[in-house]
């Protein structure tokens, strides 16, 4: 089997880890229903598995207060009883998804304390799970499919997850796992844009959600090897300018705390984020000198 596998595990075998946004607050506001969305996604997953016999698909549900694996094509036996005209392997996915949603609801009831939390999904959690799964695949031996992560996200970024998401992005970059992202919400997601930019994945925001399947198959179905030969949509530009923490202004040049990397538009004596005390900057000396300088001519 191993020899067969080595022959078969060529560079176009993919492991697709799909992060499915199941945030109820998002899905109660969208133009397409969750069931329509699921139809597109399931069809897409089927297509991916049809592209190569050895392709593997893992689906992680990204809920409001939890996330979990809901499908793994390598562990589900395909010869299960058929439902109603839909591929048998997905009935287990839907079953698990239902369980997951129930559990997520219970958890969100428990956690009702944080009232003012933004209605964001737990992207950082599902990203970490995906990376853990991929890490396990990497460690299983040198014969493994080429992994990539696809985020199907609709809800907005959760600012409180910023550090966690960024850390996940950087570990994905280290593992050389591209994070593709397909954002189906209304405003664009800075997290996903950056994730795809940093890891070398593809970011796209479909214009018409009823054609989601077409977008998914056209942009996100190709394996990593074939991507080298395909023209994929590229972001026109990424705004790398930072915003200062003190006045939230977008700035080209500013001061950065050397301890916590907080950004400020003016010199502070103390970092407002981490409390580090700054020394007198050299710049100030210079400016005070030039200050003297430019005042002298009038005297």
């Amino acid at each position: 089997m191993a020899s067969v596998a080595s022959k078969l595990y060529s560079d176009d075998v993919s492991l697709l880890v799909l992060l499915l946004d199941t945030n109820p607050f998002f899905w109660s506001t969208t133009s397409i229903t969750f069931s329509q969305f699921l139809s597109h996604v399931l069809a897409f997953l089927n297509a991916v598995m049809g592209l190569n016999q050895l392709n593997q698909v893992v689906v992680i549900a990204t809920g409001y207060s939890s996330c979990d694996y809901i499908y793994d094509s390598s562990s589900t036996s395909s010869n299960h009883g058929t439902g109603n005209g839909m591929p048998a392997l997905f009935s287990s996915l839907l079953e698990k998804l239902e369980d997951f949603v129930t559990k997520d609801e219970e958890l969100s009831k428990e956690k009702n304390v944080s009232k003012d939390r933004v209605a964001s999904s737990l992207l950082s959690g599902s990203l970490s799970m995906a990376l853990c799964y991929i890490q396990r695949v990497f460690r299983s031996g040198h014969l493994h499919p080429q992994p990539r992560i696809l985020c199907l996200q609709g809800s907005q970024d959760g600012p409180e997850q910023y550090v966690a998401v960024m850390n996940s992005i950087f570990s994905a970059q280290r593992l050389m796992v591209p994070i593709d992202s397909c954002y189906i919400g209304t405003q664009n997601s800075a997290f996903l844009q950056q994730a795809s930019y940093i890891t070398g994945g593809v970011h796209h925001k479909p214009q018409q959600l009823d054609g989601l399947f077409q977008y998914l198959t056209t942009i996100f179905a190709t394996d990593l090897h074939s991507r080298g030969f395909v023209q994929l949509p590229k972001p026109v530009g990424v705004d790398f300018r930072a915003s200062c923490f003190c006045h939230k202004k977008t700035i080209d040049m500013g001061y950065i705390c050397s301890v916590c990397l907080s950004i400020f538009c003016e010199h502070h004596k103390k970092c407002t984020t981490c409390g580090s005390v700054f020394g007198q900057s050299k710049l100030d000396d210079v400016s005070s000198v030039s200050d003297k300088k430019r005042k002298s001519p009038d005297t």
Partner: protein
Amino acid sequence: MASGQVEKRVKYKSSLKDPGTPGFLRIREAMLFFVPTDPKSDSKLKVLTQNIKSQKYTKEASNKPPWLNMTNKQGRSYIFEFENYADMQTCRDFITKALAKCEEEPTKPAVSTSSEQLNIADLEMRFKLLRENSELQRLHKQFVESKVLTEDEFWATRKKLIGKDSIRKSKQQVGLKSMMVSGIKPSTDGRTNRVTFNLTPEIIFQIFAEKPAVRQAFINYVPSKMTEKDFWTKYFRAEYLYSTKNTAVAAAEAAEDEELAVFLKPDEILAREARQKIRRVDPTLDMEADQGDDYTHLMDHGIQRDGTMDVIEPQNDQFKRSLLQDLNRHAAVVLEGRSIDVDSEDTRIVAEALTRVKQVNKADGDTTKEANQERWERMSRVAGMEDLQAPQNFPLAPLSIKDPRDYFESQQGNVLNVPRGAGALKRNVHEAYGLLKESILEIRATGLCVPLIKPDVSFDVFRSLTQTISTAKNIIGKNPRESFLDRLPKSTKDEVLHHWASIQELLRHFWSSYPITTTYLHIKVGKLKDAMSNTYSQLEAMKESVQSDLRHQVSLLVRPMQQALDAAFQHYEADLQRRKAKSGGGERPNGYV
């Protein structure tokens, strides 16, 4: 003014120890003279007041004589001892006034002709920087030569460049030669028994550094007891006695001549220093180290300087030095390096400077009691057994990182207002979850929707994707990390970069001129504004001139520049309006109250 000149009877001392030459001190505004009473004395003095840096004086309450100590800009000091305090105070006050006048005067011309005041080194540095940096040169040419900025203004923002270079340029201090002083061989003329030693200031410095006793002796004896020449003669006589290895003779001569004995005896100061050093060595740390430091008492092999073995004569032991000791001492001095920066021919100054350095060093380590205390503490600390100690609680400085949410929520601004509405949504969490579950049930029941996708929707998707991909390719090029600038023709690229640099320069000067407090700044801002509007039109012209397929991209590049300029113009206009309103309202502009 009647007090245009002050004359007092004083004693002039070239140094603290100097007994002083009696004479008259005559002070005028520009200069002070000292005329000794004894016309033969050569200690006449003439000092320009503007060369005086500072003056110190003894207080009346102290029991010191009324001294006035002036230091000139070269660091030389003149000490005058007055007959009484009243005299001293008159002189002091007079000099203070004269000094104040001197200081005022040079500042005035410095404003108008400050570029002339620049020293040549500074100018050279600027030229060098301009030569090395073509971009800087272009900016300099554009702004300084067209009189938008003055030379000083241009360089004021680049102090770092100049400073960095001057650090790089700073000269290395020359250390001591590793050759031993005893290696100086006397030259003989071969016929008589005369030997001649050639002394250079460097050798003298080395001798002083290596042999504190000699230094001390020099300070004590010269010039009160003997002349410098006699001193060195004596010194080399002692050295000569060593080299003859005739310790008996050495002992005999030492008994006769007290001064010579100083050179022959083991160096007491050195021995003291060595003892001090040993005390500072932590005995728990390295028991060998203290022995190594005290090389003066080390057992050696009795090898003399010239490499011969010595026959031990115990009774004259103190008149004997071995090669090992000399070598060690010399090595120690060389490693210490030149600790003072006196470049003087005057042997006495050198000797005093060295003594001062040593004293400072000693003062540092000398607070013996404290040092002892500290040593004990350190020892107990070192000797403590870690596992017998109470657990050490390192001081914790908690990072007071505030809720990062505050930041991001305010970042997203009004976008967040929607989810605030989601707070209302939250009330029907149950409803939302119910909907979701319904959807799942629905798809489980009915399966995927058929048809999954309508052909025309699919076609639309393809069309829009193709369009975005082709336009993106046009904009970004094949490689997303490739800079658009590289696709511009070289001349255009250079032009864009240069405009950017010059706008930065202009804006920096522009904004740093606000708030306008002086008319000078007002004029400067006006000039800068003209230059900026000039650049603005150049940008427009550049946009027009590029090929049509690049025009859009170039205008994208130019836009932030124009925005920055616009902001400056706006500020300028607003400021102008405000000023007009102010002066129109009968109020005087700044500066007049």
